[in-house]
């Protein structure tokens, strides 16, 4: 049938409309909530039968395309801190390379699927829970002063720590002074996660830049997208060389779907309240996390599985 497309790297045929719909649904959420959808895409692809290693690697390729258009748009608006971005990119490339080798080792040991799933459960659980609680508090209209009171105590300790790091330098665009060691380490961390999870890492990088690097929000989004772009370029190439798991046909269909879906999401987001959106997103994130957790906790239907997700 015409609507079924053969994915040679995944080694099976999948319905184009299903893939386009998945891309569209994730893009819709991306546009609706103003966050990246990479962390939702890989689990959804796994759910429709794409081997997890192919899903994660192809999603990285898809994110290359998505973050290209985003970072270019932000560059034109002057929202990209290249100095910070380059350090994060170096860290991300190092982390991505380590992550890909780590996945290769895990595949050889037969634990790649398990590690990908458990990483997702932890990351989605932490982020979903944090977002849910934060938006619930906002919906109940709790005063935000309490947060502001707590913040300085943590900040001063944290400030002392980051000021103790060597090679302090000023980042003009972001208006912060700190050691490049910090963004380098954070870049490595996000790069490793990007390789394991097949995500750009935006949902980790944005809070990291805001809370740990103290960058202004408008610069954070543009710089994060630039960093994600280069991290995912590296992950895509490394996965292609080491694991042969990047299915570019799959990536392009997902991208086309997500770009169209994002347009509808953006339109709807203008009609909803921010906290309603956040709690909805948190619920979706937690739902995906619970689904993955259940698959790890419940006895499997079969006691045999394919090695390396193939």
């Amino acid at each position, binding site marked *: *049938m015409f609507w*079924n*497309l*053969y994915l*040679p790297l995944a*080694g*099976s*045929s999948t319905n184009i409309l299903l893939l386009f719909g998945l891309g569209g649904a994730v893009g819709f959420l*991306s*546009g609706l909530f103003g966050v*990246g*959808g990479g962390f939702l895409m890989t689990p959804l692809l796994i759910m429709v039968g794409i081997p997890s290693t192919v899903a994660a690697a192809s999603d990285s*390729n*898809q*994110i*290359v*395309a*998505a*973050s*290209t*258009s*985003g970072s*270019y*748009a932000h560059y034109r608006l002057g929202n990209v801190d290249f100095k910070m971005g380059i350090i994060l990119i170096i860290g991300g490339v190092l982390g991505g390379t380590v992550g890909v080798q780590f996945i290769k080792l895990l595949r050889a040991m*037969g*634990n790649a*699927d*398990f590690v990908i799933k*458990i990483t997702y459960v932890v990351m989605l659980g932490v982020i979903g829970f944090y977002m849910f609680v934060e938006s619930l508090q906002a919906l109940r209209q709790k005063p935000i002063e309490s947060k502001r009171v707590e913040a300085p105590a943590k900040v001063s300790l944290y400030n002392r720590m980051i000021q103790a790091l060597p090679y302090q330098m000023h980042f003009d665009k972001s208006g912060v002074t700190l050691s490049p060691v910090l963004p380098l380490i954070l870049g490595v961390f996000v790069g490793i996660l990007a390789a394991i999870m097949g995500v750009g890492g935006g949902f980790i990088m944005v809070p990291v830049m805001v809370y740990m690097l103290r960058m202004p929000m408008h610069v954070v989004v543009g710089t994060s*997208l630039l960093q994600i772009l280069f991290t995912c*370029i590296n992950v*895509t*190439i*490394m996965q*292609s*060389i080491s694991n*042969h798991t*990047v299915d*570019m*046909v799959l*990536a*392009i269909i997902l*991208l*086309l779907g*997500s*770009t*169209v879906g*994002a*347009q509808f999401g953006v339109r709807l987001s203008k009609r909803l309240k921010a906290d309603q959106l956040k709690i909805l997103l948190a619920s979706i994130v937690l739902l995906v996390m619970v689904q993955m957790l259940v698959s*790890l*906790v*419940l*006895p*499997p239907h*079969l*006691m*045999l*599985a*394919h*090695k390396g997700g193939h």
Partner: protein
Amino acid sequence: MKRMRHLSLKVAALGLGVLLAGSLPAWAAPALTVSPAAVQIGAFFHGQTVTISGAIPAGAQAVLEVVGINADEHLMRKGRRGMLWMNVGEIVVHDAPSLYLVMSTSKELLTAPPPDATWGYQALKPGIRFTGGIEPAEREEFLGQFFQLKESDQVYATFPGALKIGAAVGAESKLSGAFPLPTNTKPGTYNVCLSVIADGKVVNRTCADLTVEMVGFPALLASLAYQHGATYGVVAVVIAIITGFAMGFLFKGGGGH
């Protein structure tokens, strides 16, 4: 003395077997046509129904088997560690066909086969070997698990009664049937064998080849990905960047991650 009695009983049984075999009618070889004889995996491949037609001696039953080449397969066995189920050891499966589809004229030939049947899963069992993280006592259990895994992959299947026998014309009956080649069929040559069954035994057999090959864009992509991984990666990135720019211009920056 006891030994002598045993020996004479064996000789008598053998003689009876030879006598019975001699008294069976000679069953003609079945005719078999597989259509298409070659399946191509192209960009829109979604599995393929392969039809078979043929003729068997009137009054006989038949079994059709589609068999892929034997290959070693590396699988993981699952086990519980703490609260979580995970892979706990590797099992290598030797000499199991990569694809095994079997269909029969009479349902009972597959649902309740004779104990010494040379078709179906039970005929595969003696040839399959396991090595790695498995105890000899677990062999039977894991054979069952292996067949279930293969069935869930759609590369092993049984179709009892799916072969249809037409009305007898002279000494033979026409035979027809169809089997689905799954979407995840690997390129290669498969053996399609039609066996004539009489009195619970295979009395004659005819085989034909079924070729599956990857063609066109999927073949190009797979060859690039596996033989030139770095080039494939760079091409994937370049295409993604161009697509990203194109979609960005089209929708003015939508769909960012």
